[in-house]
């Protein structure tokens, strides 16, 4: 029972950065923009988040620094793809290449430093409940924020007028423009939101997951988050399931090594990536009838006046 509790706690922790980054990207893609730079924004978020927390000793300030870094990078992306109508795939790749370099530059001075990890919730009486106590009432703030974020995005997309407009823009920007909606402005806000989420997801890694900064510590999580959005068929609810499944796969490798399973550790480390490929194939296959992707996803829009 204690082992199961430990595993669930570890899965939640491993899933949270995926969920944070993927939910931001889901909103961006729903607005019709494909930002492949999630990995780049995450890794800069991780470096800035660590720098902020190291300088101030506050997890909260660190998280804000991560969000800010993600938003700043996403603005570069917005300027390029929305302002200059540049191909979104190429720009996203550029953002990732730049992000890896910038994070190395910022983080170079912090390698080997330690900070205290994010405090965990403690409610007397509830957190001490057997088994469910720690899982439900003993997490760090990021876990609760990530779940609240998914609910908020669901509410925004399906229960508000602004969400309806955003989805309309993602499905047909020409019609939305003809109806008088500011396509580029709304897309810019969506991209900034996605950047903030990716930055926060990156900051989670050094602030709550491990108490130190390692160059390249996102290890492809940004790309997995992109795959999760496809897995979720662009639906917020399924994103939660997907993120926790992937978290479970990445935790499996740690525990399998602990149990002394006789497979090379590299094979276990490759599991999340292989799982992503398999999931992408399966999900794309079952959808062969018609794609659920936003119809205008990844296409440039230049308003005619």
């Amino acid at each position, binding site marked *: 029972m204690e082992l199961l509790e430990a595993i669930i706690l570890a899965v939640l922790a491993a899933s949270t950065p995926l969920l944070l980054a993927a939910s931001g990207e889901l909103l961006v893609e729903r607005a019709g923009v494909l930002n*492949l730079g999630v990995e780049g924004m995450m890794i800069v978020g991780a470096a800035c988040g660590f720098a902020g927390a190291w300088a101030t000793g506050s997890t909260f300030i660190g998280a804000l620094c991560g969000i800010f870094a993600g938003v700043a990078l996403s603005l*570069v992306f917005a300027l*390029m793809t929305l*302002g*200059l*109508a*540049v*191909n979104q*795939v*190429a*720009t996203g*790749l*550029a*953002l990732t*290449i*730049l*992000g*890896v*370099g*910038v*994070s*190395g*530059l910022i983080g*170079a001075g912090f390698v080997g430093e330690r900070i205290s990890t994010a405090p965990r919730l403690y409610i007397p009486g509830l957190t001490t409940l057997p088994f469910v106590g720690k899982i439900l009432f003993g997490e760090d703030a990021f876990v609760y924020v990530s779940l609240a974020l998914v609910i908020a995005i669901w509410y925004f997309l399906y229960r508000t007028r602004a969400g309806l407009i955003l989805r309309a823009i993602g499905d047909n920007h020409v019609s939305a423009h003809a109806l008088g909606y500011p396509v580029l402005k709304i897309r810019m806000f969506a991209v900034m939101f996605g950047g903030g989420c990716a930055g926060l997801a990156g900051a989670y890694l050094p602030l709550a997951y491990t108490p130190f900064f390692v*160059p390249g510590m996102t*290890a*492809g999580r940004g*790309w*997995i988050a*992109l*795959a999760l959005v*496809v897995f979720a068929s662009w639906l917020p609810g399924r994103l939660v399931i997907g993120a926790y499944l992937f978290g479970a796969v990445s935790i499996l490798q740690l525990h399998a090594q602990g149990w002394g399973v006789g497979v*090379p550790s*590299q*094979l276990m*480390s*490759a599991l999340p*990536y*292989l799982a*992503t*490929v398999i999931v*992408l*194939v399966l*999900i*794309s*296959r079952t*959808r*062969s009838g018609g*794609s659920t992707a936003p119809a205008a996803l990844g296409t440039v829009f*230049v*308003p005619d*006046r």
Partner: protein
Amino acid sequence: MQLVLEKRAERSTVIALVSPVIAIGLTIVTMSILFVIIGKNPIAALNVYFITPLTDAYSLQELAVKAAPLVMIAIGLSLCYLANVWNIGAEGQFLVGAVAGSWLAVKTHGTDAGAWVLPAMMLLGAMAGALYALIPAFCKVRFGASEILVSLMLVYVADLLLDYLVRGPWRDPAGFNFPTTAEFDPVATVPLLFEGGRLHLGAAIALVIVIGAAVLLGRTIKGFEIRVVGAAPRAARFGGFSSNQLVLLTFAISGALAGLAGIIEVAGPVGHLQPGISPGYGFTAIIVAFLGRLNPVGILIAGLFLALTFIGGEQAQIAMKIPLDITKVFQGILLFYVLACDSLILYRIKLIMPQRKVADGAT
């Protein structure tokens, strides 16, 4: 006041020619500012980065050695990008090619195998790279899975495979437990072009590939099909070109070239298989492809330029203690400027003064 894009009636050929130059100029300005921010003299830093490597014969050879894999990979990628499919996993195909070719080098190590070993290694490397690239291509045409994500995920897998092999079955027993294979035999090593130099056969192979790609794109039906499928998919359908077949073909070619670059790198400058054989050639080649305008000759020039950033970055680290990561920042910024300047080929930026408000006030 507002800036808007206006579509040009036709592509601007002037901007198409000067845009890479403008992009490089803007990058250098941005980098100078960055050098000031990190407290280094920008003139001295730019000198170490771009001028010093061009002033001695050793560095010039090193430039060609670093440019060879970049050009080979970028030529393959440019075919994919021309056909509008996104292979971004060239780094993985590079590593798998290196692994497959090294297998033969490890198996024949210490035997009296003849001169057939190196050509066979290159063939294995190219085939493995092609097969590895066909995984995302097949997933795309058969299942509709995103080739971008699948090809990228396979980079991590290839990296772990290489790591496993050199730490496990292929580790040099006499290597003091370092994660590396034994040094390749002379018959498994890419020969140098000049005795005592650094320049090896790989650079010549890269040149041949550039010419081959120029012929393919400019003089053959297949090259025409690739360009039509990318530029006008509807017209390609009417023309009866199979876009699925071209996805598989372009991925196979680019994977083969990346794999070949991988085995040449291992059997040439490195001399044995070990982790970290690539300083990110597969990703930098994406920038080379775009900076070279997806044109074989352009890619050759762009490859030399980006090779310069690798060498300049290493020298700047030694001479001025500038972190190596600045090279990646540099490459990222360069790609941004290249893409932004390319936008001006298709659009013109117009400044709109707030006249409407004045008119509203008058009525």
